[in-house]
């Protein structure tokens, strides 16, 4: 019933790490549907002919063709001719592959649970997608083509997150789309309370690890810790910038002196020779004139963690903070307001509704983890209700949807959970954007992922119907230009 295509499509070989790494983001404008004049002369092209192509959220073309070459979308349009010899895939709807911006799929379990990570810890170093081929295949078949992974999930500072493709044929390195997608931190998460014996409804007993909430003062100090980390990054950055300026000034000064001395070299030599001769005549020792040289500025000491933290202080990568309670969210917003380059992202945000206006005003996206838990749940913040996404969006907030970053197998079910948020007040278009361009934009990958436009990586789905209609089946999945899933009835 389901096959994960293992053969390679001629030419469209798994280029993995960056088929479009050099793609110019400014080319995006040329991707407007309907226009493209490209000459094709070989059989390395994949053509998707779809009843409707969802080019990007809010923009679709009826009866269009998507041409893919070398892992990259070459053209999209209704007037395009399918080149001779191209492999043709037909379907009702074609859209960008889904992105799970908060996943654990393909991450080594020990890296996920590592409590000793710091800002410079690279999640990319903890990838282990080899033992979970079946999970990768299931997630792909459900339409998820890439994920953001985060090591040190429960650690105070989780380190640098990574965005990877799920194609099981790619090595861990090839699968990397962005190895410095963000830096993650956590505030107020429950800590491990040890093993507890719990009786299940069917009468059997089970040992499960218990959650223990941290007290309110601890939680507030954790907000301060986040702020001090950003501050460390900023100071480091300032010291670096200052050093560069000083060094520049120093080098300039030296250069000027050199130039000066070169210009007057002959005159100075003559004067010196004369003085040496005079000294000899008088039987005295010649004393060289001493020049006081400006001290060379000292390079600030290299610090890997601070170097990483400077990325968030400078807004090079976003800072993702998993935080749930209203008080901590408000404090975090208030205390980080002065960092004008900081790009804050909230993960979880179970009680974010009470800070919805501030979040919207600051344009802080919230990655909501919609979950289905019974009344008996272990940690009250283990996943949010189905209404949260719609409620936040209703107050003008920017909302992404993620699978919670704890259990890799949930990524496969993210599209179904997203559909459930649609039935609980989240707009269909908003949910689609959250799973595609919204996630790509938040993690600086909008030039490569999240929409069906020329120049972007070919991560594409071909479905029976609307991507969020759970009765519509995913028929083909293209990941990095390679067809990785083909499902028939």
């Amino acid at each position: 019933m389901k096959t994960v295509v293992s053969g390679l499509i001629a030419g469209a070989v798994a280029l993995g790490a960056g088929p479009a790494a050099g793609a110019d983001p400014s080319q995006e404008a040329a991707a407007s549907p309907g226009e493209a004049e490209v000459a094709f002369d070989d059989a390395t092209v994949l053509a998707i002919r779809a009843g409707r192509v969802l080019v990007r959220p809010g923009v679709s073309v009826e009866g269009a063709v998507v041409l893919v070459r070398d892992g990259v979308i070459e053209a999209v349009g209704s007037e395009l001719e399918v080149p001779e010899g191209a492999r043709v895939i037909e379907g009702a709807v074609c859209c960008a592959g889904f992105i799970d911006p908060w996943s654990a799929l393909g991450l080594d379990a020990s890296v996920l649970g590592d409590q000793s990570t710091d800002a410079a810890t690279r999640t990319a170093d903890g990838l282990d997608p080899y033992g979970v081929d079946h999970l990768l295949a299931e997630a792909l078949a459900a339409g998820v083509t890439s994920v953001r992974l985060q090591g040190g999930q429960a650690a105070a500072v989780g380190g640098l997150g990574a965005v990877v493709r799920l194609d099981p044929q790619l090595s861990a390195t090839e699968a990397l789309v962005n190895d410095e997608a963000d830096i993650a931190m956590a505030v107020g998460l429950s800590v491990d309370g040890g093993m507890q014996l719990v009786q299940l409804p069917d009468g059997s007993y089970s040992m499960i690890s218990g959650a223990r909430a941290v007290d309110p003062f601890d939680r507030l100090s954790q907000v301060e810790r986040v702020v001090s980390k950003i501050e460390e990054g900023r100071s480091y950055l300032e010291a670096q910038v200052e050093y560069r300026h000083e060094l520049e000034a120093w080098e300039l000064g030296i250069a000027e002196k050199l130039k000066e001395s070169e210009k007057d070299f002959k005159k100075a030599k003559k004067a010196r020779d004369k003085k040496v001769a005079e000294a000899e005549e008088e039987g005295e020792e010649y004393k060289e004139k001493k020049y006081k040289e400006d001290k060379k500025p000292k390079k600030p000491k290299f610090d890997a963690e601070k170097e990483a933290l400077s990325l968030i202080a400078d807004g090079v990568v976003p800072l993702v903070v998993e935080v749930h309670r209203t008080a901590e969210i408000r404090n975090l917003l208030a205390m980080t307001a002065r960092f004008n380059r900081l790009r804050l992202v909230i993960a979880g945000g179970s009680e974010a509704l009470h800070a919805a206006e501030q979040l919207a005003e600051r344009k802080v996206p919230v990655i909501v983890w919609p979950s289905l838990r019974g009344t008996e749940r272990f940690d009250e913040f283990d996943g949010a209700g189905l209404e949260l996404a719609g409620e936040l969006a209703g107050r003008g907030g920017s909302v992404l949807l993620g699978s919670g970053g704890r259990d890799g197998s949930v990524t496969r079910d993210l599209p179904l959970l997203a559909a459930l948020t649609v039935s609980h007040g989240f707009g269909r278009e908003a949910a689609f954007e959250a799973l595609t361009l919204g996630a790509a934009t938040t993690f600086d990958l909008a030039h490569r992922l999240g929409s069906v436009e020329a120049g972007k990586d070919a991560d594409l789905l071909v479905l029976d119907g609307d991507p969020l209609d759970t009765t519509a089946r995913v028929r083909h999945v293209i990941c990095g230009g390679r067809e990785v899933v083909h499902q028939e009835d």
Partner: protein
Amino acid sequence: MLETLTVIATLAAGGDRVDLDAPLVGERTTVFRADEVHLGDGRVLDGGVVFVQDGVIREVGVGLEPPTGAHVVEHDGALTPGLVALHGFEGGGEELLDSTRPFLPGADAATAFNPDHPDFTRSLDCGITAVVLSPPASILCPGTTAVVKTAGAVVVSRRAQLVLGLSTSALKADEFPTSYAGALAALDERFSEPKGAFRSALDGELPLLVKISTRSQIQRALGFLTRHRLRGALYGSYWAEEVVDEIKASAFSVICTPSDPGDDGRWARSIAALSAAGVRLGFGLDAPGRHPHCLRFGAAVAVREGMDPGAALTALTGDAAAIAGVGGRLGRVERGLDADLVLWSGEPMDLASEISAVYVDGKRVRGGER
């Protein structure tokens, strides 16, 4: 046998309460008109009309003229029977649990639940209008199930199914029986000289709900059950993928174990395979451990795996009610059955479809108008 029972139940339910042939009184009638009326048995009426009076469905069809004075509910979307969750502990909790003896056939789940428990309200929010409360199969025979409406916690049927625990969790380390063979021997004894509930089960009056888990448990249980010509449903679908043919041949129905997001892919593959083989299916929920939305979520996961959406809806409605022995009263949109209806904004098996309204016994309990 079950069909005969169904007919009797129909008479007892609809027939007793209302005269289905009496003329409709407009003022007491609510007429539902929907883009699609899903009957609960796989059939769909485009532009269907449903007449409800005194809590009972009186007419179902296309192009029926509403009686004068009837209240008409026009719905831009789908109408389905209320969903039936087949296995759970809603409002029961530990009240249902007694593991002191291996046999408690007289224990009645209807006597052991809190009708005000929030589980019922939560289920209703998710379109579930009836749940089957079950004593946990932690012993060989923990008792009988009860079918309860989530609105008002009204018991529709008590002693609905006789529960047998044929998974290893029914075996104790220090109490008879300690082995699977011992358990089957003990049950053999009960069914060889049957009394009470065991007699009713043998006579086909009381369907069984048999909790199993692994493949070998399925095979051994089916061997035992077919030897005694027993009927009913297996509870436990996870390992069914490789033993679909044996289950099909046994004529036993299967109640699917509930699914959480992230559950192993085998879970959905087994259900899709059972459905493809034509095994009658229903879904368990096991609230309060699970969110009531897990019921339809699980069905949607099976649909993603290839199960027909229509078959999935039948498993959540008509077939579920039939498995619980209340097919003559619940689970379908049909003349004489209880008017437990759900209005959806779109396809009922599309998780993006909203629940617009829920009606139980013809009365609106969620959303909608009147």
